[in-house]
């Protein structure tokens, strides 16, 4: 996957340093591996679990420690069925959610660009009616792409914006309606209830929608990502994670913990400020990069 070439260094060098040339890693080496995984934000529990699993795999001999780690992480990722991201029937509604500053608006624009490139018609809905400038930000992206943006005045009911956008999508026979929502911390109960309402309103209009609810997570997020996933899953029915800002030095390990703990697959990775900087998540390529590069 070409996207991986845009990312920085993975854990390869550090894992090799920890494990040395020996096929049989000792106690200290495994402890160091665990540290490397913790440093990649997998969290202490998953890191310990992966190390325990990998050690089990090397017990019979014939498997290198490095291969065992890859196999263990790979199995944990594969346990969550990874389906290609498909849209349709029209209009397919994609709800973009997440905490403040995770990169929702940029992600919404990147998704729009992606579907447009595939030859689909797209509508963007500016349902972040709270943050000053958020509507303008989405409008600028829409102008750049030549995509219509459904918006209301600042402070409007986000569910009403979503309703208008879906109605417009139905009327125009649009393929994809992407609804950008306001950033909200998962502990803000009123705002989470508001999000649940946005979802409800969409479903009332089109019972099979939203087709996707994407939780945009900043790759630098630490273990709070677990709390985010849990609450957004409960309130908004998250179907996939977008791991954003992967062009930094963060490895996005908390997303692996989210997959492991909540069974939500990673749908996309995003890695830059250009519209093309978004790619479907490829578990094998990600692990290759994470563990080897």
């Amino acid at each position: 996957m070409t996207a991986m070439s845009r990312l920085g260094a993975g854990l390869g060098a550090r894992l090799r340093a920890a494990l040395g040339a020996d096929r049989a890693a000792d106690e200290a080496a495994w402890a160091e591996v665990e540290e490397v995984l913790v440093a990649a934000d997998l969290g202490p529990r998953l890191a310990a679990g992966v190390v325990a699993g990998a050690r089990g795999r090397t017990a019979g001999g014939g498997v290198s420690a490095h291969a065992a780690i890859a196999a263990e992480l790979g199995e944990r990722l594969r346990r969550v069925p990874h389906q290609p991201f498909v849209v349709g029937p029209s209009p397919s509604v994609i709800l973009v959610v997440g905490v403040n500053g995770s990169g929702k608006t940029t992600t919404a624009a990147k998704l729009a660009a992606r579907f447009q490139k595939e030859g689909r018609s797209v509508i963007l809905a500016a349902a972040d009616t709270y943050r000053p400038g958020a509507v303008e930000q989405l409008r600028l992206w829409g102008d750049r792409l030549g995509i219509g943006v459904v918006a209301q005045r600042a402070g409007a009911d986000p569910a009403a914006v979503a309703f208008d956008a879906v109605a417009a999508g139905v009327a125009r026979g649009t393929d994809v309606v992407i609804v950008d929502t306001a950033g909200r911390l998962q502990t803000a109960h009123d705002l989470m209830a508001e999000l649940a309402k946005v979802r409800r309103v969409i479903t009332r209009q089109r019972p099979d929608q939203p087709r996707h609810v994407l939780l945009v997570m900043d790759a630098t997020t630490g273990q709070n990502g677990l709390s985010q996933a849990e609450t957004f899953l409960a309130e908004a029915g998250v179907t996939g994670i977008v791991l954003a800002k992967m062009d930094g030095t963060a490895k996005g390990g908390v997303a692996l913990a989210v997959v492991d703990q909540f069974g939500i697959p990673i749908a996309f990775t995003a890695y830059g400020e250009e519209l093309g900087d978004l790619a479907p998540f490829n578990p094998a390529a990600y692990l290759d990069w994470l563990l080897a590069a």
Partner: protein
Amino acid sequence: MLETLSARLQAIATRLRGQARLTEADLDVALREVRLALLEADVHFRVVKTFVARIRARAIGSAVLDGVRPGHQVIKLVHEELVDILGGERHVLRLGPPPGPAVVLLVGLQGSGKTTSAAKLAVRLRRDGHRPLLVAADVYRPAAVEQLIRLGDQVGIEVVTGPTGTPPAAIAEAGLFAARGGGADVVIVDTAGRQHMDQPMMAELEGLVSALQPTESLLVVDAMTGQEAVRVAETFHATLPLTGLILTKMDGDARGGAALSMRSVTGIPIAYVGTGEGMDALEAFHPDRLAQRILGMGDIVTLVERAQEGMDREEAERAAQRILESRFTLEDFRSQLQQVKRMGPIGQLLEMVPGAAGLAGAAQAAVDDGELRRVEAIIDSMTPTERREPHLIKAARRRRIAVGSGTSVAHVNRLLRQFEEMQKLVRQLGSGGSRPGHAPRLPGR
């Protein structure tokens, strides 16, 4: 979801109760829990390592092992060490001698909360008697300038910016010029979010620093940041250098271990903490409060402050008066409920109560805001007369109220029963003969 460290240590302490001394094996168990909790709070793994080693040395080297309650002693040690790392004293911004203007530069990764923090900081400095001016120098993110202009409008503070394509340094210079002309003494410069490994963008920051000579360069950091926080702070510090940190989004449930790590590794003090969506939600940093939060020990000080903000003093006194006069009605009850709601979600409040942190999740489910809302809906569905004289509410009225509030008769019954209990208690308090200003006698005394 996460057990808190203090809850786990309390469990160990309970198990060890009666034991005169803490064995090294017990200490190992306790320190393993400390390590796990710190890592789950996103404290950097190297910081955790040295931290645990220090606790071990202190525990072994001191009389702690002979303590009466050895488990609690470990908690105390951990707390002390955390506060020590976080720095004893608050960082007060150095805004330079007049005539100024002093420049405060805000930098950070994308989405860390710079623009919002810029506006909040301006509000705060104005409250402290300064005349701040905002500069929108984020020329990259679409509509970032627009965002700051709107925020400036909202809080009534001037925002200087330049036409699209103006280099950030030129915009900032214009800001300085405007400040001198308009009598502002602090210029807060909002910069574009950037990746710390992005060489050209970091070079641009260096240029800004040499042009503006800021007295304060503050790194704005998301409290939810993970293990990379240290590297981010180190890289920005090496470029600028930094003078302080603003920790944002602390109104969430992030434990804020990243802040501890950055402080520990770079020595940069934490100046402010962002605690909400409102423009006044920027608080001075208190090391002991963050230490307690990382430990999950609760934050009673913040709770009390939140209570003071949420409670209308007159309202509270009025209610107290009515209680003493045994005239406490369902209307008063509802207004009390609304005050509790204003303080924030119940679960979040419970997190701040020492010892209750573990309960918060369960309590949230049981007494969540939904329950509060239901009670409110029931009271709202009563007539004013019914609220004042609930004994009038017989079967037919109960059915009407249940339908009106979207609840069931059982809910209405329960509320009325609870209220009756409360009134009984209130009557006992009132008949104790206490007058306002005197502590009411408790029943049975």
